[in-house]
């Protein structure tokens, strides 16, 4: 396999595999879940670092977790993600674009999100199978749970994204996969995430339940941010995309037989997050 270093966005062909921190793309390549002949190192062309309300897509999670300008919800989401080693390498954009942790997908089972030469599969193995870590919302087509703590934090902050082609709200980055279109993001082929733009928040908080104390994806992550009279709450680990919660949102959950406990956890953490914002 070839490793190339891009010197401008024009160097990035639309079907390129991109390398920034490498903590996601390298394991996926090694597991055979994605394929390609060349890997393009984009660290030279993607903005790094933090400047006011703008964060470079190449900033590492480790930078964000220790910068006092960053809102609490995002700092805490970074701090509770992965391990220190992974946070030192993993980039912000890479975290937002990571693939599901659904074990069926990660094992290469021919599921609705898994594409082979014959096209996509037509079954969600988790729905009838082992789904304790899976989605409790929007799980009728694909029960995968979105693993990004950071995405939930940015969704609660109503962050905006700048790509090499357009500007969009973070919520618009994600889409629920469907029979006709299996993609889970709206990025076009070759489109590069360049910057994240934060809106100010008066107060914010991130609470995370995981099955050990560190280095685990969220069973439930609750991100909450208050700006003036507006409170936004977003959840990680509960739906195939980061999940923005409506006022009565938890009542509309559709847990599977083996993951109703996640709803209980979500109820408790949402209650605590609201209390923390009011305190």
């Amino acid at each position: 396999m070839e490793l190339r270093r891009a010197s401008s966005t024009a160097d990035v062909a639309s079907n390129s595999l991109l390398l920034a921190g490498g903590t996601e793309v390298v394991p996926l390549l090694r597991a055979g879940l994605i394929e390609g002949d060349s890997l393009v190192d984009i660290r030279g062309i993607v903005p790094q670092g933090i400047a006011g309300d703008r964060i470079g897509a190449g900033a590492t999670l480790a930078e964000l977790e220790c910068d006092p300008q960053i809102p609490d919800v995002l700092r805490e989401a970074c701090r509770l993600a992965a391990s220190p080693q992974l946070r030192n390498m993993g980039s912000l954009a890479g975290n937002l674009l990571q693939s599901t942790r659904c074990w069926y997908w990660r094992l290469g089972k021919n599921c609705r999100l898994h594409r082979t030469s014959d096209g996509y599969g037509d079954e969600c193995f988790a729905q009838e199978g082992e789904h304790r870590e899976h989605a409790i919302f929007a799980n009728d087509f694909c029960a995968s749970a979105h693993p990004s703590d950071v995405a939930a934090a940015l969704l609660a902050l109503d962050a905006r994204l700048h790509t090499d082609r357009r500007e969009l709200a973070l919520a618009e980055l994600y889409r629920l996969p469907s029979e006709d279109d299996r993609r889970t993001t709206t990025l076009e082929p070759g489109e590069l995430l360049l910057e994240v733009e934060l809106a100010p928040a008066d107060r914010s908080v991130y609470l995370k339940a995981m099955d050990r104390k560190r280095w685990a994806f969220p069973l439930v992550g609750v991100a909450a941010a208050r700006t003036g009279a507006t409170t936004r709450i977003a959840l990680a680990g509960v739906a195939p995309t980061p999940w923005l919660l409506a006022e009565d949102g938890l009542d509309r959950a559709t847990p599977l037989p083996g993951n109703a406990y996640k709803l209980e956890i979500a109820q408790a953490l949402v209650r605590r997050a609201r209390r923390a914002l009011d305190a």
Partner: protein
Amino acid sequence: MARLIRTEKEVEGRYEEVWLVVEEDALQQWPAGARAIVGQPATRIDGLERARGEAVFTADLRLNGMLHAAVLRSPHARARVTRVDLTPALALPGVHAAAGPGELEQLVADCNYQGAAVAAVCAGTLAQARDAVAAIDVEWEVLEPLLDPDEAVRRRELLDEPRVRARGDYEQGLAEADVVLTGEYRTAVVMHNSMETHQAVVQWLGDAVEVHISTQYIWGIRDEVAAGLRLPPDKVRVICNYMGGGFGSKNGPDDYTFIAAELAKRTGRPVKCALTRREENLAAGNRNATIQRLTVGAKSDGTLTALGGDFVNAVGWSGWTSSTEGPMQMLYACPNVTTTTYGAKLNQPPMKAFRAPGFVEGTFGLESLLDELASKLGVDPLELRRLNYAQNDANDDRPFSSKQLLECYRRAEPHWERRHEVRARSTDTVKRGVGMASQIWYGGGGPPSYAWVRVGSDGRATVITAMQDIGTGTKTAMAQIAAEELGIPLEHVTVSLGDSARGPYAAISAGSSTTPSMGPAVRAAAADAKQQILEIAEQRGTPDAPLAEVVALLQDGQILGKGARGPNPAGMQVLTFGVQVAEVAVDVETGEVWVDRIAAIHDVGRVINPLGASSQIEGGIIQGVGHTLSEERLHDPRTGEILTTSLDAYRLPTIADVPEIVSELIDRPDAHLTNLGSKGLGEPPIIPTAAAIANAIRDATGADVRRLPITRAEMLRALREAELRRREREKVGAPAGV
């Protein structure tokens, strides 16, 4: 003098009667207490070479011309290979040889578990070998797997006849009881996940074979490889200088050693066959799941009148039915006990011994049930255990060679007393509590085992024995014993081990037996050398001269001492004991459990190296916390396919999950056991951890967790059940007519 005896040999709780030639153990034990070197904390004598990366593990070996093997393993829980064609693999660059089903015994076409080896390839690089395995043209007929252990029992799909053990009159015991409690407890499949995966490098040297392997039992590998290859045992040399963990899973040669041997024979080159981390999570063994349906009957003061259990071990396709009933049979002085243990034969990867197999699972069930009993009766759990203390072996009334469990209980008191203060720190949402559990296990070791000690004119000594250090630091303990006996500094002793061609037979490092088996042989060898040096000093007319002065006369002469492990005490039961006290906090809204502190008090006779001993206790408890809270091998309920084959899906504890660990050892020599009075400590510390945590959760919340691991789902379920019970009680307790 050597003598022939008929004796019971115990490994991992399994007994067999064997004839043994043993040598008398004539040495007196040292008096109790720490000595100049033995009983003093010693850092590992090979610590620096390990830390610097200089220690060469099997995984580090790169022999000249070495080829790498990769194995095609069944992706299905049950399937038949209907067609296999190795030609596409053999056509790829770098590929030297390939073998398919039936070409050696370990490669099969009928696959009865995921991970069964079907074909193997060797190539110049590991990547080439893996590509070649992927290129093998294979067709499977997928068959319906049997996955449910209860269903296997119903269908009599069992590994062996159900094991029934009974004493007294169980029904009568239940009739005499004031209270009878039952409970169903479940434990999950957990994985060893040793840092160094299972692997071997095999090369043929003429008609002899050299096996470098990460193993717990050099001599067992020698015998099994010799039998498998139909060679005289002396044509097999086994080498393991350093190993990265085993926990019971590396006692035998498995498929990979024979695959490497066959491919090495075909190519005339050394071949390495190393399991990947994913293969390690499939085909390297596991602690089997259990279902335990338990009953206890007791008088209202807590005196046990009956204990009964049906134990279903979900063994997998092969292995053995470990002693899940052992703690119920052995721990307490209950007169009426009946147990039945089933080994369910399933289309799942075979179990292997895993750090106190059976007893970890069985102690969780029994000690949880006893705690539920104490709670029901309003009896202090520590008092309940004292009340039912077994003076002699409960099954055949044999005396224990030594038993300091009451002293363990006494030393547990200050930790147990903390429960009032711990509970008082509870809040509305975070409840705190303290729980305890007892430990019983083997760990006496046994003969045969041999060691030599060589002393040169420089006054330095080398201990020579073909044992292995599984990673517990027994190499350091052996050096301490030799230095103590010879009266020379620890730095003047080196230990040569890990090579069947360079030393005498040594015991398996399993069943907490390395130190109690090897230590007495090393001491006997050092004493033999010392005696010879004393005789020289007497001939010289300076019987009190220091060792260094006497041996300085030797020039190229050397003193060669030899020693053997003597017999275990006849008619006695040699066991280890202990107790652990856990402090936990439970978030009753989210089901999160924190283990804050575990105090571990164990009785393993004389302690050789207190630093190594506390490391063993810490390691056992950390592994136990993992089994209790987060580790679980998951499979798809329909196909049996294993879902947790990587370390992000299989959740080992991180350092953030580790509680404060307070370790104490009673450190009283077992007066009946060998010239050392030492027992093993590898396994005891993991045994009571799960039950102590579960009992602390009960103390904190009133909830009975009955399934390991205690996931959020299980914790929340138990809390809901406890809440329903509380409401029921309130309803029943309400005044009539209201």
